């Protein structure tokens, strides 16, 4: 069947401002939107630029706005979005070309929450022990693939690019609630700053946008509790 794509194009080497271009491709209900973008790029217009790699929702390269909602192009199928599909770059980050945005501000926020394991005690010869329950405590937030779908769907982030944002909070959560980690207190200080967790207004856009189905708003709620109490329960 024919599928109509309406893609927001912008090439700063040629264009004064972004504009939509239309393409018609042959698609099947089970095709990924990424397959359709590939059809355009490979057979109609090689200048179309977007990021992609694994094509099954794990690498996090191809987050974009599809019919107005943040999705991974490889994880949304034609049957999910219909035969007229509007595709735009993620909101709130500088567009570099077509569907490619500058990811550096996103990774800067990521780095600000100490997104790494800290425990300076000399490690045992074998593993540090952790119970199944302790491990389960932060399981959900280990799934994050840093695709930026959550942060760029958040009105607080749209209002200010300085907002640390849900993706970085998810990373903070992953370590703060890890029984082996020792830097929770330092991270909570960062989260309590002006652009920290208090800018989250429980709008749930992030949770809905997450292609990994992480309960992000819930995780942020747990972080808020920890900041407020000054301790981890």
């Amino acid at each position, binding site marked *: 069947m024919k599928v109509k794509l309406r893609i927001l194009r912008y090439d700063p*080497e040629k264009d004064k401002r972004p504009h939509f271009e239309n393409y018609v491709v042959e698609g099947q209900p089970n095709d990924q939107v990424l397959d359709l973008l590939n059809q355009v790029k490979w057979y109609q217009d090689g200048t179309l630029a977007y990021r992609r*790699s694994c094509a099954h929702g794990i*690498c996090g390269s191809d987050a974009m706005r599809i019919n107005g909602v943040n999705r991974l192009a490889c994880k949304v199928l034609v049957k999910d979005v219909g035969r007229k599909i509007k595709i735009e770059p993620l909101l709130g980050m500088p567009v570099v070309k077509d569907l490619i945005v500058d990811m550096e501000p996103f990774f800067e926020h990521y780095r600000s929450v100490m997104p*790494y394991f800290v425990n300076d005690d000399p490690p045992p010869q*074998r593993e540090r022990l952790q119970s199944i329950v302790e*491990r389960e405590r932060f399981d959900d937030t280990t799934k994050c693939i*840093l695709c930026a779908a959550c942060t760029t769907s958040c009105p607080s982030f749209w209002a200010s690019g300085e907002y640390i944002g849900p993706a970085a909070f998810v990373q903070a959560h992953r370590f703060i609630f890890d029984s*082996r980690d020792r830097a929770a207190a330092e991270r909570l200080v960062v989260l309590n700053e002006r652009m920290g967790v208090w800018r989250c207004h429980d709008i749930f856009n992030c949770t809905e946008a997450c292609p990994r189905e992480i309960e992000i708003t819930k995780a942020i709620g747990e972080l808020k509790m920890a900041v407020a109490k000054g301790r981890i329960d």
Partner: protein
Amino acid sequence: MQHQYEVIIVGAGGAGLMAALYASRGARTAVLSKLYPVRSHTGTAQGGVGAALGSEEEDRPEWHTFDTVKGSDYLGDQDTIEFMCEQAVPVVYELEHMGLPFNRTPEGRIAQRPFGGHTNNETGKNVRRACYAADRTGHMILQTLYQQCIKNNITFFDEFQVLDLLITDGVCCGVVAYELATGELHTFHAKSVIIAIGGWGRVWEITSNAHSYTGDGVGITLRRGIPAEDMEFYQFHPTGIYKLGILITEGVRGEGGVLLNSENARFMETYAPTAKDLASRDVVSRAMYLEMRDGRGIDGKRYLNLDVRPDTVNKYAQKDGRTFPDGSPYRLSAADVMAKLPDIIDFCRTYMDVDPVTQPMPVQPTAHYAMGGIPTDVHGRVLIDEKNTVMPGLYAAGECACVSVHGANRLGTNSLLDLIVFGKESGVRAAEFANQNGFVALPDDPVDFTRQQLDALRNGSGKEKAADLRQEMQKVMFDHVGVFRTQDGMREAVDKVRELKERFQEVRVDDQGYLYNTDILEAWEVGCLLDIAEVTAVSALERTESRGAHAREDYPKRDDKKWLKHTLAFLKKDEVELRYKPVTITKFQPKARVY
């Protein structure tokens, strides 16, 4: 623009990041990656990393060594396999110390699950050796290593694609990289270079591999006269999602899942009476191919069912007498499936409308992993001929390297292990080399060769499209250099790939700009894939035996007398030159391989 670092690492997956953590301790290091590091293909590995920790039951590195040798169909070098399996134990604990969130046993230790080909050598039964984090072990390894790199302030050049290797008088002295954001060519002058770019599943039509898995590093080294080793040995994983190729982890069978044909029969009992569904991958893929060829594909189509529904699992577990480590009968519940295989469930629901808890999964073999690659020794040093001559300053690690620890067939969980063990080793050695040696002068006009290649793609006649050539290559390689091979089929593949290489000269890219010109890089990658396909098909055609993943209908037996040796393929202007070198055998004399 020109840069200078003591150590340059090309690729930021498991091997590249592990190398970076170690090289940076002793030398000024930078990592170049065509993707953001967290996008690397290591992140898609699912089932586990192999190490004889013995968390759940008795296990020993010697058993792991023998299983790997046997799995390799005796083509793996036994000294390097032994090194890897011994290092496995401390290096997995090291990952845990870096914070990797492994699943846990009730005692709080790293949880382990059974995987194909990993056995207790005394009883012959499958052993729990795969250390896992749900079904996203690779994701956890990639994330953990990247996190540690952030912690240690490693220098990254993200979205810099390396297009050439620089060599002066036989000594490696750097690389040329293309900056995606600007189209600028950068020269990186280095004392040592570690190539860790991963594999090249995109040579084949149905693959579990990422679009970006195009074997750039092997393409580059082949063009600089460095051979590629054992390229005919390419692994087809038994369980890819039908038509899509997306990987369904062997962990599904580790948890008790079984393969069923159109008669609802567990056919692996016939092909591998002891290991059954957990025989090694080449054995299972071949059995599947034969079942489908004999008309027992589901609905007469080219797929079979992988069934992990609790009722099915429990029925066969009872039949097999399978028990938990404490001796009680093995049982799997729907909740267990959801807890241990969440991503698999997600893939099946998203892409096939299939719920693995209540329905079987349609699967077919999918191009998955390169056993061959850039020849290296146990320290990651690149070897450039059959006498094992080292190229000073050049290292390779991970899937793109051939140490050779996988020989003719890799066991599941040994790829993640390979990444961390040899990523670490090459990082340590590359830094040592950099400390002991000065910079070698760069060649005149170092970017010349790269510029010629890119100019050709900008200025071709435009009679051909790179995407068409890629598709034709993928089809002929899947049909004729796949699970089963014949003389005529491989001959056809060689001829076809050579024709495609001719036609590649006529490619002209649409995008003539410089910012994020992914058009030109994709076209350049097709050139790499074609070189790799040619070398693979020629190496395969010449090897007149069946061994591991190289299965020939016209030569169905292994022939140790003639073929217990590694292939070295050199890419020449109009041909591929093949040479050979012996396999290192220490403790285990080749014998028949039965599962």
